[in-house]
């Protein structure tokens, strides 16, 4: 099963019955899959007139209390910025998939991780965050989209799956989750009050700044809870690692190979793979920093997550960055070379 299809099937099993998309490479298979399956599930597949319409349809379906999703790739995600900010402002759950490609501008269509900042810092205007999950295998594409819907409902926040063209296009074996049948109640949803309650309002406007600040503060308290409880990271050979490599998604796979090769050469390398990019797994990285001599961040961009790593490491050990941009996937060999260089300089320093 292709990664894109796995995302789609898992969403359906998570109870998503509303998909609003707009074609863009490299995520088209997702929409195609939805178009095939949704009618059979009694769900709605609707190709919107644009990415903007699509995210606003997610906003609408979510306001009605439904599990809804949209998916796109980098330029299309930029167009959704306003809508995502509205969802955050109105505390609406929903899942947004970004199968990243190289940028900026029209860029290219090859895999990239250059929307990290956009996903974790500023998907749109205003103070807000998304929960951002970064799968690294097709199996995880399945698992995390499933999880994303639950997180979205629990915290009333949009959740983003940050994937890339490689993960979207590749096939790997995958075990699908059992379809979800029980869903949380949404008393805030607009479904018609039937004369039985006061009218519900879904809204992000607060003309009084005091009121707007209150909503911001309440939201950031929720974010604090998310930070406290939802950080996720995978550690690989980190226990005794002197060089800890931090990488997520597609690039973490390359780093894993490079770490293995480094170990073969006697270099104590390890990998921390952030799974939640927001909340950033600061705890895991901080703990590893205590034992490490150097940190290396590997990304498929010009250096973005490395800022978050630096914020956690806070000067305790050197933090280096290695990245490839424009849709190029770094090779294990060149990554290994960087690790070796760092190892050599550490030794040099020790002498």
């Amino acid at each position, binding site marked *: 099963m292709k990664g894109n299809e796995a995302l789609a099937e898992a969403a359906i099993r998570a109870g998503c019955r509303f998909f609003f998309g707009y074609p863009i*490479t*490299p995520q088209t298979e997702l929409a195609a899959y939805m178009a095939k399956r949704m009618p059979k599930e009694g769900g709605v597949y609707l190709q919107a007139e644009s990415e903007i319409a699509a995210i606003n349809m997610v906003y609408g379906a979510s306001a009605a209390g439904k599990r809804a999703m949209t998916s796109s790739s980098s330029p299309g995600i930029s167009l959704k910025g306003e809508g995502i900010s509205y969802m955050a402002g109105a505390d609406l759950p929903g899942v947004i998939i970004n199968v990243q490609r190289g940028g900026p501008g029209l860029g290219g*269509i*090859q895999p990239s991780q250059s929307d990290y900042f956009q996903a974790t810092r500023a998907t749109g205007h205003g103070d807000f965050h998304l929960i951002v999950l970064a799968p690294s295998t097709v199996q995880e594409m399945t698992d995390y989209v499933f999880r994303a819907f639950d997180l979205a409902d629990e915290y009333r926040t949009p959740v983003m799956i940050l994937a890339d*063209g*490689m993960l979207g*296009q*590749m*096939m*790997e*074996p995958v075990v699908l989750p059992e379809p979800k049948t029980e869903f949380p109640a949404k008393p805030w949803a607009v479904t018609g009050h039937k004369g039985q309650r006061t009218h519900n309002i879904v809204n992000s406007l607060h003309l009084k700044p005091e009121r707007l600040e209150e909503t911001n503060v309440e939201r950031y308290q929720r974010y604090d809870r998310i930070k406290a409880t939802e950080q996720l990271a995978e550690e690989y050979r980190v226990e005794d690692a002197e060089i800890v490599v931090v990488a997520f998604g597609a690039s973490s*796979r*390359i780093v*894993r*190979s*490079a770490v*293995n090769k480094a170990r073969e050469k006697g270099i104590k390398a390890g990998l921390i793979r952030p799974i939640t990019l927001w909340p950033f797994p600061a705890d895991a990285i901080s703990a590893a920093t205590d034992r490490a001599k150097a940190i290396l961040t590997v990304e498929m961009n010009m250096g973005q997550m490395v800022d978050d790593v630096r914020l956690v490491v806070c000067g305790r050990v050197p933090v280096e960055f290695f990245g490839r941009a424009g849709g190029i*996937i770094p*090779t*294990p060999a060149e990554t290994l070379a960087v690790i070796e260089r760092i190892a050599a300089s550490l030794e040099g320093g020790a002498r």
Partner: protein
Amino acid sequence: MAASLNMLLAGFGGQGILFAGKLIAYAGLIEGRELSWLPSYGPEMRGGTANCSVCLSDEPIGSPLVLEPDVLVAMNQPSLDKFIDSVVPGGKVIIDSTMCQRLPERDDVDIFPVPATQLAEDNGLKGLASVILIGKLLREIGFCDPRTLDEAIVKSVPPKKAHLLPKNRKAFEIGMLNEDGESVPVCSLPEDWSVE
């Protein structure tokens, strides 16, 4: 044969490269291995070259993008020219010799030219040259039990196109034929690739 096998299949769009790659991946799945299949994608496919990376391994697969293949299946000259240098020493190169006039000059890899397109046309198997090459590949490196590949073919041909199943099998068989034109009934699989 290593426990990890990285293959690159390349040709024109429409030559069945992606399907052939899926057959290999499917066979890996049936035999319970780790596997990945990654196509080139996007509009450059159009009229250009298409390729896909297939990895089979006993361990979790790192990069699914094969840059230094153990196996190259090349179905046209541009692809052959583009990728031949990246094949690891000792690697295997299966070539559709109908489509490639100039064979490579490397002597540190094993080269197997098969006039697959010609063979396909001669046998009424238009469009199945890629499956012939998979047969040849299996014969040469036995990456799985031939029965597994047969099963993979059965599962990969969609029910709506069931009438194409015999043709696919035929193509596979032609590829598996050894030089003297004799079909190889059981493939001598390397130890770490055998099943059950």
